[in-house]
């Protein structure tokens, strides 16, 4: 934190909080979505192991959300 003429510059801190929130909240959302799919997928694979590939496709679909969060976080820290 840089203090110039008695005013604290919190820009970097705010960027870091923003980046953290972007990844963190997106991660929580993805986790909630994957939780149910994962449970169902494991059930299906136990019944028939040939379903592994197809289960995996459904399992990782919500992951895109956390990737969005990650991109925003990286852009916030490094690009902006």
């Amino acid at each position, binding site marked *: 934190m840089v203090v110039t003429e008695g005013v604290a510059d919190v820009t970097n801190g705010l960027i870091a909080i923003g980046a953290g929130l972007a990844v963190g909240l997106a991660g929580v959302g993805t986790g909630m979505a994957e939780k149910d799919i994962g449970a169902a997928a494991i059930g299906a694979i136990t019944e028939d192991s*040939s379903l*592994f*590939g*197809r289960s*995996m*496709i459904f399992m*990782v*679909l919500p*992951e*895109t959300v956390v*990737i*969005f969060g*990650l*991109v925003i976080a*990286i852009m916030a820290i*490094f*690009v902006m």
Partner: protein
Amino acid sequence: MLLPESMSRIVVAGTKSRMEDAIDAFYSVGSLHVIDHTTGDDGLSIGSPTPSTSKASERLLKVRAMEKELGITNKTSTADVAVEDVRKQISAGDVESVEREVLEAVDARNDLTQKITELNARKQNLETLERLSLPLDLYSGYNSLAVLVGTTVADPTALSIEGAEVFADYRKKKGGVVAVFVRKESADNAAAALADYGFAEIQVPQGPKGLTPAEALKKVDADIAAATERLEAANTSLDALRSKHMSFLKGTDEELAIEVEKGSVPLRVAVSRYSYVMDAWVPTAKVDAVKAGLEQKLGDDVYVEFQETRGRKLADSEAAEPRFSKVPTRQKNGKIVSEFEYATSLVSIPRYQEIDPTVLIAIFLPLFFGYMVGDLGYAIPFIILGAYGLKKTRHKDWRSIALALFFGGIWAAIFGLFFYGEFLGMHFIGGHYDDVGAWHWHEDSVALGGTSVTWDWIFGQQFPEWFANMMPSFDHAAGTHHGVGKLVEVGFLLKLAVYIGIVHLAIGYLCGFYNHMIQENGRGAFFAKGGLIISFFGMIAFCYALTNAMMASGGADWGLLTDGGTTCVVFILSIILLAIGTGIGIKGEGAMGAIMALPEFLGQILSYTRLAAIAMSKAGMALAFNYICIGMILPTMAVIDAAGDTITVLDPTANIAFTIIGILLLAFLHLVIWTLAILSGGLHALRLQFVELMTRFFDGNGIAFSPLREIRKKTFFSSKNANIDTQEV
């Protein structure tokens, strides 16, 4: 290479009397995928198994039961046996005689096991009764008395029942034991009183007069010891039987299984009174060879007729009779690519009418893996592990994993050396020469108190210039960087990942277009996938223009006129492409699908930024671990270098104990990163193939080409003549 092998349908007809020879001939040509006959109104019915099948399956059951008893599994390694010997032994009734031998030993063992269980139960009862110290004969032999003996949960020592004598004992851990001697007419009252204590009756063993439980216990212990000894002997003899008959049983199992399978072929074939008719798929290239092979073996008793060579148009398959509509898929890949078929099969078997994605997986899976790992230090163990796996394992699934690791390792080495310039998360080069040829360390280098450990700093020696020139260089205000810093050139890595994604997705969309073209026609493909492809490129141009405009940060022209108007041109072009693409899409797939596709493009492309993200995550961990182990634990000292800067260097004269601790810790922590690299790198590389690439064009749900063929692992033909029988034509 891309499409599965072309298939033709043939009909084989022959006389029923030579059915068994015919089945042998079908197996020997090894290329017939039988189409199951379904009873219809053509006057033909389904055949019945050959006469020897029922005996063979009965024997197979016996053999499998024996294998189970003796603990022989698929993993048990046994010597291979000659088919001729096995057949001779089977017909000589060896299965039955071995069964008698094995059953006798197994029965003996089971009897002993049961006896020991009974003796143990008796022992437990005696131990309980020992606490009451009454001789065993006193518990029985009364005319007017009933005796209730058993254990209780609650403490029974204070129990008193009218007209009865009670012996009781209670210990906190073992619970209570009680014996009640009561007149027969009051027995019900006593039982009711005992029920409150959680009474459970036990069997009192008989014994001669005056025999105490303690004495009886001694005898039971001796009996148990004797029985255990005999059980051990029985187990030893079973083990001996196991090693004696192991190879015979496994060989027989395989031979009988093949015999039963062959014998059931008539169940899939149509028969009339004197003849059989079989429909089968054969790879088009082998039709003539199959026909010649069958005619050579069966002479005039067989007739083979070519029916059709199935095209890739969906309409052809829909027009066919239901049982001929699905064509089996035989993937046509080279030796190396075919190892990756396992990855495709994890999703589904490709349809006959579509591109087999295996070759794309074989190219991109290791490439993405290598890009994400991107480190020479991690690559070398991957290459070694992959090569070792390929040498050791024959199992299809493991081979494909080993091959992916091997090629992934090679790509990781290439990226690590020529792109990132890294070994174990540490860059080779940590500084640069200035205009007058003096060496300066980067600002973040440990030499100047930063956190970035590099190899030239560890060695205290700069690498030659040609080595640095192999890697891409980046000009920063503080000097030139050699090699792509995963945590420095973040923008560049992200952009590169997006470009890789665009190429990968474009390949996927083009494959989809091609699939529709061969399944329908050019017009169908244009409406189904053409619009989507145009929209895809439109969306890319749109995002490109938008990002440029945003980065130019506004103004009256919204940043569109930066780059001398290029952005504006791209923007207009993107709108036109999007409009055309969506228009075609609406006509082809409906408004909903075409409009929903637009935001999806964005998600698909951004999904590839994980390539950069995972590379960064590993670099971040490695940075921390390297700084802890080398920068903080290893002893250092300050010196003044040639350029006159005060720098920190490793102190070679310091206590060696710290050096050893630092290196051991470093090795362990890098092992952690390396293991995580398999999981995250491997799984995400695979995911990009399965989800982003294959969903663009892959339908799956094909049926695998499974020809009639003997698969022998434990048995072999000892004579050369017989061997020809199993060769594929």
